[in-house]
Each structure stands twice: as C-alpha cells, then as structure tokens.
C-alpha cells in the first residue's frame, strides 16, 4: 500500500449546482500516485456528483482540477479517459451482447490493412489485459454470460487497456461474494503497487480497513475531512458522515402503538429481501431507514403486490390477506406513494381531479355511468383540504410544482380510504415549504384519523422528526429497530452500515 507523495489528482474548490440543490460546495480532494483513497458519505452527500465531474459526465461550476500537476478542464468522458481517468460504475457500462474482447477494446479495436477488425490481434491484446487482472474467461465469451464478478474484472481490464492511472470504483463489492471480494482487493493492491491510483466508494466500513490508505468523508456536498485509514475508527467516521448542527424538533409526541394494523411475517423475495418481519399499529408512523439498495422499496413493492412474493404472510387487522397484485392491496386498504411520481405515481396528461379520483372511481359510479358532478365536488374538497395550489381542478397535473404533485398523490390515497400508507421518499425533490406541509399531513393522517404510515426515507432528520419507530434495513433485512424519540442519526447509520455495537467507543 505504498504511495509516493506527488498527487496524481488534485481537486480544489470544486462546486456544482443543479436546479434547486447545491450538490458540491468548494470541495478539496487529492489522490496520490498508487494510493487507494476511500470516499464515504450518505446518500446525496455528493460522492457520485464529484465522480461524474471527474469522469467527464458533468461539468463543474467552479474550482480547479489538476492532473499530474497540470490544470485541466475535463470536457467529455472521452477526454477524461484520455487524461488517464477510468470509472467503473456500480451498474457497469458494458454492451452485454458483445464479447469480452469487443467490450474491452470497444472503439479502439486493432484494424487490419483493409480496415476490418484484426481478430487475432484483438484477442492477443485482450488476453494480456485479462492476465493482468487474473481473469480466466474466454475473450470470445459474451459478456452477459459471465458472472457479476467476472464482468467487473472485464471492466477493470478495460480500464487498464485505456492506460488508466486513476480508476474510480463505485460500490464495487455490492454484488460480490466474500471470496470474490477478497480477490478484488488483491487486484486493487496489485494495481496500487504498479502505481495506479484507486478512488474507492463504498458504504461498507469494514472493507475500508482492508483496502484503503486514506479516507475522505463528504457530507451535504462538502468535504468534512480526510484521515489516514489508521486513524479512522468507525465512530469517528459515522460522526463525520452524519453530524448535523441542529437537531430538528420532534413534530409530535411519540405515539405508543395500540391496535395492530399490519403484521408482516417472514416475508421473502428471493435474492432481494427477507426474511422480514415487523408489526405496525394504528396511528403509528414507522420509518424504514437504510442506505440505497438496502431493500426498502423492494419490501414495500412486495407488500403492495407489485413484485411477487416468494414467501411470507401478510396480516391486516389480524386477518391474513393474499396480495398478488396492486388491486388486492388497494382493496385491503393499502396505498403506495412511489418514489418516482413521474414514472408511476401520476398520469401526467390527466387533470388534477382525475388523478385524485383514479383509484376511487367506483364510488361515483351508478348504472355504469360516472356522476361527474359529485366526482368534481369530491376532488374540489380534496384540493382544498390538502391546499393543492392549482388554478382549477381541471389543470393538467404535469404543470403543477413537485410539491403540489406530491400532494395530489397523497390526496389520491386519502380519497381511496387507505388505512395503511407506504410513502417512498415522500419529500424528495420538493421545496422546504411543501415538505413541511407533507409532514403535517402525515401527522394528521395518523394522529387524528388513526391511519398508519410506513415511510421510506433517506433523509435522517426527517426520519427522526416524525417516526414513532425506526426500522433500519440492510442487505434486504431489518438490521435493527430504534424507538423514534431517543434515536440519534448515528445510531441509524450504525445499523445501516452494519457496524457492530461493540466496535463503538461510545
């Protein structure tokens, strides 16, 4: 794990803004030759934005990037590759139907005299690269026939073929077995000893000890600090990742659950979620916390009947129910506010009113005809109740602001008389004012109307502010449960990251 002192990459004062959000603020960062530099941060801390700037996918607003002593403006992914930077995305960037060899030298195939691809040379060159990463596969095998670990090796071989001296790896071990992970670490150490630097993004704190020279923590778009791995113990890292200045006041008194409203037993969706068991009570707000990919949305989708269940039972109000499709869930009184309202929450070309009444149309139906007047009246009432800002109920919902669109989705489920609401990232991407309103609506729904909310959220202050109970998920299972009122962000993160309690200094 040697590294010479000359930085191969320096990032100075880089900032990046997207409409409505400051993703990076004056970030400083440097990587030395042959160094394995870990990058840590919560969802939305700015890690992937920074990496996308380095790989040429985004352009920075401010600041300097200095590569091997020369300031550069990275103009495009290709330019970034020419500068020696190679990025391996979590979801790989491969043409699955092409062969290993074709992928590795995509765009730089050796040509014969007549301009066709020189297959022999192609395989020779690829064979060399595969040996460097220790991958045994046949260069003529199709990429989609390989295992995930093998495909990852192909990506690394591709990076080496591009003469990369800085390789960025985004969550490289998320799909690997223990043994494959060790293999990967070997390769990374090998790269390092050959002078190739690696930026290693991961949520798995335990891994960083095994492969890492220094670690940098980002939070809310800023660099919190950089430590040599020897000085980075878990409590310190977690505190750096999570610590916020103000602790937002609890929005409501903690509610002690009484009547059981939903019980999940041993729910399994093979390879994704489970076994998961938990109970929800009347009037409760439960949060499903955890990192991206921990299985929260998959759990909600399985309960709502969108994805198939491979095992487990669902009890509503004490009675077992069979939920095979969303219809069953809606009939059982469950509502699901999806993470992406554009994709699956709203019919954008329909009016506000028609979106609100969509699940409840049979209420307005008599003799196969809809009573349009009473439908309109009900929609109007709903719009007022939720303070949805729209010039008229007939306004196409596409033209509403994000916050108001979200309220339309909530209004929709309220009208459908849902008793149990799954809310997947309900305040993501909406302004602070609307966020506050959504929170109040959630509290009103539970405390006053006796409904139950199960909220998936990556926004820890939001989780702490609202929840009666917090279930933290990790790798598809519930890693821990915390009572809402006493929980701290650190505790949530500890469960989310899988940091064993003994290793916490306190």
């Amino acid at each position: 794990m040697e590294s010479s002192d000359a930085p191969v990459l320096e990032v100075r004062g880089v900032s990046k803004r997207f409409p409505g959000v400051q993703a990076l603020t004056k970030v400083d960062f440097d990587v030395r030759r042959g160094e394995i530099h870990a990058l840590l941060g919560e969802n939305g801390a700015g890690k992937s934005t920074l990496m996308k700037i380095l790989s040429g996918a985004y352009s920075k607003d401010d600041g300097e990037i200095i590569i091997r002593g020369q300031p550069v403006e990275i103009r495009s992914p290709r330019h970034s590759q020419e500068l020696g930077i190679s990025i391996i995305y979590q979801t790989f960037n491969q043409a699955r139907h092409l062969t290993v060899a074709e992928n590795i030298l995509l765009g730089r195939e050796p040509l014969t005299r007549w301009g066709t691809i020189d297959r022999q040379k192609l395989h020779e060159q690829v064979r060399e690269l595969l040996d460097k990463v220790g991958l045994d596969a046949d260069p003529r095998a199709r990429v989609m026939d390989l295992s995930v670990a093998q495909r990852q090796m192909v990506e690394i071989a591709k990076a080496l073929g591009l003469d990369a001296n800085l390789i960025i790896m985004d969550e490289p071990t998320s799909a690997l077995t223990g043994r494959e992970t060790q293999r990967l670490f070997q390769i990374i150490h090998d790269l390092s000893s050959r002078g190739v630097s690696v930026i290693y993004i991961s949520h798995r704190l335990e891994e960083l000890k095994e492969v890492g020279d220094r670690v940098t923590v980002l939070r809310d778009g800023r660099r919190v600090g950089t430590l040599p791995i020897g000085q980075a113990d878990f409590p310190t890292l977690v505190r750096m990742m999570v610590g916020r200045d103000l602790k937002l006041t609890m929005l409501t008194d903690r509610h002690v659950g009484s009547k059981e409203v939903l019980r999940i037993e041993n729910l399994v969706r093979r390879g994704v979620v489970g076994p998961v068991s938990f109970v929800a009570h009347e009037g409760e707000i439960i949060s499903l916390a955890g990192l991206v990919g921990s299985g929260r949305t998959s759990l909600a989708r399985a309960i709502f009947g969108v994805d198939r269940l491979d095992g487990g039972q669902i009890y509503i109000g004490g009675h077992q129910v069979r939920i095979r499709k969303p219809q069953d869930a809606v009939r059982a009184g469950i509502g699901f506010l999806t993470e992406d309202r554009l994709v699956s929450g709203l019919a954008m070309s329909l009016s506000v009113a028609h979106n609100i009444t969509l699940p409840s149309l049979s209420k307005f139906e008599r003799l196969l005809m809809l009573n349009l007047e009473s439908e309109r009246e009900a929609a109007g009432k709903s719009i007022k109740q939720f303070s949805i800002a729209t010039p008229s109920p007939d306004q196409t919902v596409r033209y509403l602001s994000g916050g108001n669109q979200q309220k339309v989705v909530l209004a929709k489920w309220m009208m459908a008389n849902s008793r149990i609401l799954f809310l997947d990232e309900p305040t993501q991407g909406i302004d602070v004012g609307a966020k506050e309103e959504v929170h109040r609506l959630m509290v009103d729904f539970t405390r006053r109307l006796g409904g139950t909310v199960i909220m998936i959220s990556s926004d820890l202050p939001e989780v702490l502010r609202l929840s009666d109970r917090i279930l933290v998920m990790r790798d598809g299972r519930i890693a821990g449960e915390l009572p809402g009122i006493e929980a701290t962000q650190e505790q949530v993160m500890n469960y989310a990251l899988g940091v064993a309690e003994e290793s916490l200094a306190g």
Partner: protein
Amino acid sequence: MEEKLAQPAPSPLSRIGRGLRGALTHQAGFMALMLAAMWLVFSSFTPYFLTSRNLLQITVQAAVVAIAAVGQTMVIVSAGIDLSVGSVLALSTVVSAMVMETGQPAPVGVLVGLLVGGICGWVNGITVGKLRVPPFIATLGMMGIARGLALVVTQGIPRFRLAPGFDTIGQGRILDVVPVPTIITIVVYLLAWLILTRTRLGRYTYSIGSNAEATKLSGVNVTRYLVLIYTVAGLCVGLASLIEEGRLGSGQPAGGDGLELQTIAAVVMGGTSLFGGEGNIFATLVGALMIASLRNGLNVMGVYAFWQNVIIGALIISAVYVDQWRRSHRITS
C-alpha cells in the same frame, strides 16, 4: 405558490373573442374551423360543393372510416394502435354475407358482422393485455390472420347474395333525406363520447394511455380494461363493415384495404397524440370528415384520382404540424 387571481366580469364582445380563442385552443373546435375553411375554399372553386346533397354525400363517404376510427381513437388514446382494422372489416363482411347466403335474414347478418368484429377485437385485447405483446405486433398479426381467413373462407370470391333489406344500412335514407350511415355515425359518436367522458372504461382508457404503471398501482385491473378497449374497437370495425357491406351490396374479401391507415389518419388529424393519454372523440370525426371532404372536393373539381393521395398525405402532415404549433402556444401563453 401563486394562485390565479379572480377575473373581472367579461363584456359581451370579449366573451365572443374568448369563445373564438377557446375554439382555437380546443382541439375539436380548431379542427372544425379548419374543416369549415376547407369547405369555403372548395365552394369557391365550384358551386356544386356546398350543396346539402353533396355535404350529406360526404358524410356517407366518411361513414365507414369515421365509425372504425372511433375504435381506433380509443386504442390510440390507450397508447396502443390497431393495424388490423381493414382486414377485420373484410372478414366481417364476408362471414356476414356468407351467413345470409344460407337464407338467414338481415338481422342475423348484422349480428354476425358485429360478432366477428368483436371476437377479433377481443383476441387483440387478450394478446396485448394478457400476453403483453406490443399492440403494433399484435394487431399486425391479426391483420394477416383476418385477411387470410377472409380469403380462405371465400376462396377469394366476393359474396353477393345478401339478405333482402340488408343494404338499407348502407344505402337507405330516413325520411327520404338523411342517409342511414350518417345517422349511425352520429349515434356511435354520441355513444363514444358518453363512454369516454362518463364511464370508468373511458376514464381508464385515458389513464392507461397516460401512465399504465400508475394506473395499475392505483389498483385498476389494467389487463381487463385493455381487453375491453380492443374488443370495443373490434365492434366498431364490425359496425363499419355492415355499412360497407350495405353500400357495396356484397362481402369483399379484399375489402377494407388501407382502412387502418385511413382511421389512423383521421385520429391524428383530429389532433390526438399517437403517444396516448389525451384526445377528443369529436376531433376524430372532424378528421374523418376532412379527409372525405378533401376527396370529394377534389373529385368535384375533376382532379386526377391518384393526385388525391398525394394531397391527402400532405394535408395530414400539415394538419398535425399546425396542431403542434397550437399546443406549444397554449403552453407558453
């Protein structure tokens, strides 16, 4: 979030102005204005165009396309497409004709024609809704199947012996003035309007076209409604086939050629988006009338028949172009 301020009470003149602007921004209204403009242009070329006799003739000429286009409208609004329209029409006419050949009275022939259309539509619906085959492919397959069946059962020979009284559907006149096809067209469009605006089927047609996933997640049985939509479309084709059969006095296995494209043209010229989720049924009627008017007008003017196709093709493109312009202005203004 800013709320729109209450408008002051409008004066009569500004009401007319707003009415006109409303017609301009409203899909069907706009197309109706364009249709009227087209009629004025033709009448300036020849006095025979704008006679009640000729205008009624236009509605008869438009009837088959217009009625089949009702089903096509629903399918397109649901973000699908129906390429089997022409072939199913042919199959309906020949089966209906062959049944009447065996001595069955006209009402049976009517029923059979509708049934054949409905069944073919139902098969389309199952293929799209349950088997999840993309509508383009599903109806393309049905196009071949229906046409093939029509040729097989007739061995390629048209059937002429329809039941007595059957051709009233295509050639009769109510009170000696209003053609039967015209009445049927009006009734069908009113029914379609009722369905699309006042029933769950209609509402779900729009929501499925706008976002099938969100509709499913709202607890709607999207599969069932897709089957229904395509079945209704098939019934529309069946009904249109009766009119065609009545007009020609025969069942033609090669009939309905190109009808699918004509119905799509009518829908599209009415301003309905091919991507689904929105659309006005009366705009389709205007679209069908525009195409029929164009043919009729060019005929009366003595334009060479083949040039008509060129002109109609150009008209479709410009009508859609103008409609897109209208939409973008509505958003920004």
